[in-house]
């Protein structure tokens, strides 16, 4: 019974990602979309907080949103995976519910 959590806000502007990470359960998935994809950046002031969760939780970013913002997938934190919209759909189908951290 896993949940897909979506985060669409930049974690540098808004607390949504941190609140999400504080409430995920082991085995859940987190997908960063829209301005949320900045949360996948390695070497930022928030990378450690994300990396610390990337073991017990699967962390994804939406590839198309990453490209739009000029971020190469090579810049992602280790353990964070880029997926396309088809991957987004699969995550929704494979988990039991989706929760948006607006």
């Amino acid at each position: 019974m896993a949940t897909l959590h979506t985060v669409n806000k930049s974690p540098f502007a808004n607390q949504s990602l941190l609140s999400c990470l504080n409430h995920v359960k082991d085995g859940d998935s987190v997908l960063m979309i829209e301005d949320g994809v900045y949360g996948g950046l390695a070497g930022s002031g928030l990378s450690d907080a994300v990396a610390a969760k990337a073991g017990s939780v699967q962390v994804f970013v939406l590839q198309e949103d990453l490209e739009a913002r000029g971020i190469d997938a090579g810049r992602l934190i280790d353990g964070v995976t880029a997926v396309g919209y088809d991957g987004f759909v699969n995550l929704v189908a494979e988990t039991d519910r989706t929760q948006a951290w607006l």
Partner: protein
Amino acid sequence: MKIGVLISEGPYTHQAADTAFKFVTAAIAAGHEVPRVFFYHDGVNVATRLSVPPQDERNIQQNWSGLAKEHGTDLVVCIAAAQRRGLLDENEANRQGKDANNIADGFRISGLGQLIEMGIQCDRLVTFGD
């Protein structure tokens, strides 16, 4: 699998309606069913037929109207949210004594019960907002 979609933000201002459109298109392409998309909060503004985006930008309303036409997706605009924000169909305009309406083809105005019903009847509910 039946996937219901909730859109909570207005067009152009937030990416929500764009992301939702890409998601729904991908879901249908993957063989899922998206029987209904519910527009709430500023999301109701997606349904206006009066928008005139620049020629080199996407037309968000036409994207959705086209999807409804092609796949029969039920595009429901919340009546209470729509009234606050000035999004009316002909019926509502007459009922409220307004001299114009602005809803686009493929959208219909109905109550919040349609959102709950979508939650009950669909296997998943995905929200796009701010």
